[in-house]
């Protein structure tokens, strides 16, 4: 077999939602992009996620994350329109506002206190949200059950068809000339001659810049170019019902009806390493809470359950950095590849194309935050 040799301006490692959004953003600027991806065996958060474009509750402990998330939510409409114009694929982005439902007064109090702390932070971006009592929730969501005690509502929250989003990004980046290569696991990366050499099993790719967007795989790849990427898998489990006629106009943080009619349920968080086993205990708990929120869900048939792995940093916030020791090597990783797809494509990709992540926008997201001494 002949050895493969390719050259590109930018090699993006990872073809999930983060890598594909950055690759699309770069390719539409005229950058020659090659995307190196794993095959079907990859741990693919982009195919297992819950597909929310979610703002409320993001950024307690890092106000910059709240601003970055709001910016993405605000850009999402034009991002979806551009994808539709280019590819003909409607990713079904809707932003009707979203609910976090509470099933007891205690949950309502905890929720209100958490959001108050979030919005009291110095430098926090301003946006509307409100706490609703049970009667106010019922006025907007007449289907809720008697145990719903209140909710928080944020008009910036929405959702999307994330499988179609991944497909649209792939179609779009290839229309702009990007090369997508599945089954091209990157084994080694070596800085060479102001650029990079990426060794794959059957050859190599040379690129002026690289973007590590390999999710949990970034932990292995980062140190090859002087980047510390402390990410770990965190399991989430999801239930999907049969498709039914539309009944739910708003996404709930744990329940949403897709554009095609399925109901997705799930928000579990487990530290389980690389284990993607579905556990009856967790999905039962998810289903039980969902039925308390919307009693008629009890009559629906479940057609699928699955577990997928989030890409989690120690503090849960995204991580963007250009390597100091190997300039031109960037890492971009987060557990919000759907919500942040718009900023990854329309803001981060142009910054990478220019070769700089300005500190005022990206400084807070550097992995340096994990190495602050305990005492000053």
């Amino acid at each position, binding site marked *: 077999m002949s050895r493969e040799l390719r050259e590109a301006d930018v090699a993006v490692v990872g073809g999930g939602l983060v890598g594909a959004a950055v690759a699309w953003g770069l390719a539409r600027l005229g950058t020659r992009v090659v995307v190196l991806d794993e095959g079907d065996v990859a741990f693919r958060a982009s195919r297992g996620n819950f597909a929310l474009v979610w703002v409320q509750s993001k950024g307690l402990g890092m106000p910059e994350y709240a601003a970055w998330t709001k910016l993405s939510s605000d850009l999402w409409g034009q991002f979806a329109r551009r994808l539709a114009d280019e590819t003909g694929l409607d990713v079904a982005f809707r932003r009707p506002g979203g609910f976090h439902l509470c099933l007891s007064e205690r949950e309502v109090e905890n929720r209100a206190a958490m959001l108050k702390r979030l919005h009291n932070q110095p430098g926090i971006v301003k946006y509307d949200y409100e706490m609703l009592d049970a009667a106010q929730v019922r006025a907007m969501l007449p*289907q809720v059950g008697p145990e719903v005690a209140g909710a928080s509502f944020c008009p910036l929250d929405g959702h999307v068809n994330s499988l179609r989003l991944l497909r649209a990004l792939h179609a779009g980046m290839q229309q702009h000339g990007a090369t997508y290569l599945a089954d091209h696991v990157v084994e080694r990366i070596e800085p060479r001659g102001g650029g990079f050499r990426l060794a794959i099993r059957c050859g190599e790719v040379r690129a002026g810049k690289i973007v590590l967007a390999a999710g949990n795989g970034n932990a292995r790849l980062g140190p090859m170019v002087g980047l510390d990427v402390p990410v770990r898998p965190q399991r989430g489990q999801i239930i999907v019902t049969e498709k039914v006629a*539309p009944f739910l106009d708003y996404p709930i943080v744990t329940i949403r009806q897709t554009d095609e009619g399925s109901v997705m349920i799930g928000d579990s968080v487990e530290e389980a390493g690389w284990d993607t086993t579905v556990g009856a205990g967790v999905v039962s708990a998810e289903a039980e809470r969902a039925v308390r929120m919307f009693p008629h869900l009890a009559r629906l048939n479940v057609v699928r359950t699955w577990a997928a792995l989030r890409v989690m940093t120690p503090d849960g916030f995204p991580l963007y950095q250009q390597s100091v020791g190997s300039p031109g090597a960037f890492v971009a990783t987060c557990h919000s590849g759907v919500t942040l797809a718009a900023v990854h494509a329309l803001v981060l990709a142009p910054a990478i194309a220019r070769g700089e992540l300005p500190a005022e926008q990206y400084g807070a997201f550097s992995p340096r935050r994990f190495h602050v001494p305990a005492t000053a």
Partner: protein
Amino acid sequence: MFRRLPDTDVPTIEVTIDGRGARVRAGDTVAAALISAGVLASRVADVSGAPRAPYCMMGVCFECLVTVDGVGNRQGCLVPVVPGMRIETQRGKREVDL
């Protein structure tokens, strides 16, 4: 399109298909009853709107979804007919009473 094998006589029962009375064989599944009654499109797909018919007849493909006694999205090939059963070809998505 389909013919019965010439086996022994089996008792028939009365059901309704889209509101009209029909005699079907006892022991048949809903999907088999629809096929033998000449109903070729047993549903209209919930997303594409395309007419669909029973395919695998063994519970795997979910093509034969019908409304049985008012409950939508039943797999016709897994539900045996019973006397008086109301079988409706399904138009689009299942409706769920709130």
